[in-house]
């Protein structure tokens, strides 16, 4: 009774349409007739960690490419907070609040860790803005705070090419964090990491998800189980199954094509 009274106004306020942070609907892309992604629909809620799994060639990375504008969709829609992304340029999508990490660490080797983070700071993104950009206290404090989070505060002055593989991955995650995206997309964030680095990365992800949604592609099932709220299984460009890790693991279709070897 008490609970019902408490919860009802909340339900009323959020009422109307369900507020998906990201709504992917009937998304299709074909390369020369081959449908790499075929009629894929899924929804990501605020503060959710969603993991996309699937065998090689299932179209996982292509889905991320489509969301961040690197690949143009042949059909379907991608709505982020109600805004259609398929028509926007890559930089506009980033500015709308979507961040993307690539499969191999994509950082600037010739710049220091500090400068890598500074470039990702969301200010002075126009040509003129970049010319007159001032490295003020706000920028410095934020960079120091992020560096602390990604375990790189002692490496700030080091050139990024001298970091270890794991550190490079963290740096790229840090570069996304400083943009403060509401939707963070990570493509295999623990691939090639040592066990120790993997644990630290899981800890890092759990730390940074507050106030944002994360869409992760990952092969490491142990890692997926640790972090995922919900899992979407892609197979041959289509959604095969969706739900909690527990449910997906026991789905006979999934077992057949993927988990059951």
């Amino acid at each position: 009774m008490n609970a019902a009274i408490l919860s009802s106004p909340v339900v009323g306020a959020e009422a109307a349409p369900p507020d998906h942070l990201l709504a992917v609907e009937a998304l299709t892309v074909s390369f020369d007739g081959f449908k790499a992604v075929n009629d894929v629909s899924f929804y990501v809620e605020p503060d959710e960690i969603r993991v996309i799994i699937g065998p090689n060639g299932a179209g996982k990375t292509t889905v991320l490419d489509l969301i961040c504008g690197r690949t143009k969709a042949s059909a379907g829609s991608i709505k982020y907070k109600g805004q259609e992304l398929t028509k926007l340029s890559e930089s506009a999508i980033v500015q709308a609040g979507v961040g993307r990490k690539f499969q191999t660490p994509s950082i600037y080797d010739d710049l220091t860790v500090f400068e890598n983070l500074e470039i990702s700071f969301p200010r002075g993104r126009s040509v003129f803005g970049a010319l007159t950009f001032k490295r003020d206290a706000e920028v410095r404090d934020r960079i120091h705070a992020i560096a602390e989070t990604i375990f790189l505060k002692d490496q700030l002055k080091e050139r990024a090419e001298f970091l270890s593989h794991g550190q490079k991955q963290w740096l790229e995650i840090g570069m996304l964090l400083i943009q403060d995206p509401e939707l963070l997309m990570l493509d295999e964030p623990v691939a090639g990491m040592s066990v120790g680095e993997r644990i630290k990365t899981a800890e890092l992800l759990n730390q940074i998800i507050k106030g944002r949604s994360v869409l992760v592609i990952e092969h490491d099932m142990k890692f997926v189980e640790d972090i995922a709220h919900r899992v979407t299984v892609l197979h041959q460009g289509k959604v095969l199954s969706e739900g909690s890790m527990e449910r997906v693991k026991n789905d006979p279709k999934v077992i057949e094509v993927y988990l059951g070897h």
Partner: protein
Amino acid sequence: MTNPVQTLTKSVTVNDNPFMKPVEWLSLVLLAGVILVVLPLMLDSFRLNLVGKYLTYAFVALGLVICWGYAGILSLGQGVFFGLGGYCMAMYLKLEASSVANTKIQSTPGIPDFMDWNQITAIPWFWQPFKSLPLTLILVVAVPVLFAMLISFAMFKRRVGGTYFAIITQAIAAILTILIVGQQGYTGGINGITDLRTLHGWDIRTDGAKTILYFVNGGLLIACILAAQYVKKSKLGRILVAMRDKEDRVRFSGYSVAGFKVFAFCFAAGLAAIGGAMFTLQVGFMSPSFVGIVPSIEMVIYAAVGGRLSLFGAVWGTLLVNWAKTSFSESFPDLWLFGLGALFIAVVLAFPNGLAGIWREQIESRLTRRVKGLRAPPPAIVPPKSTPVGAPAE
């Protein structure tokens, strides 16, 4: 390790990105000293004018450092912008030299001589703005920069880059040369625009005028170095480097990559144009032989020899290659081009960072070691005698 380092960075952060490092100030003073003091004292008027001509190419090399070295956009058509700047200046000077009094023997007095020879009877519309000096000074930079913007915007929006872009710039250099040569009546053709006399009534052919122009040129070059240094030091400079490394990452950090590339290309074009205008003023003519493919590639070699990542290196490289060109081609005119080619190959194979790289590895590292050696002992105890200001530099 963590704590001392941390406190150190905290206290230094206020000035962790100075406009120029001490070594760069030293390089600037050295360069300015040589250009503005040593050479004028050492050389006669003819040789000084020759150095002035070389230095106009240094503007192009400076632009290439930003455009090629930093942004990774190789342009094999900088002669186009050098030439456009030079032609803009030449058109003004030619109109002034073609007063009715000077050209009364022509069938149409008051127009440039080559127009008269080509049966043109009135000054064409695109020559009209060059009757005004202020307008000319604006157009000297504006025409090449707008042209560069047009080309680069069309290319970079479509994400044409790398070798393809280099080839297109080269094609444009060839096209512009053919156009200038073909339209003899409007451009002076293969001879170019010659017989230039006065700038707003001031005779530029005298030794005195040439010396003054040399200093104007030197001053402008220093100013352009500082401007390029500002670009290099700004966040924009770092974005250019980042783009050269990982273009996609920059794009997915929320930047419109094309805009930054257009800026780098236009900046280089603007510098080249200033060089071109100063060339016309000091040498007294402008011709298509400074627009085409060969001069454009030579300009890239200047930057490569000097070091494509060093503003000062680019200037020294330009001076050195041109000095070598003049002395070699006086004695072995046939061998010079082979020499130039060999030089380029040597740079690419043996010292990819050019003269600046050699300087940095050999001299600067020793210098900073010595300076650090002097500064390293706790300064509280032995400050007075061991650190006179002038000493570390030598």
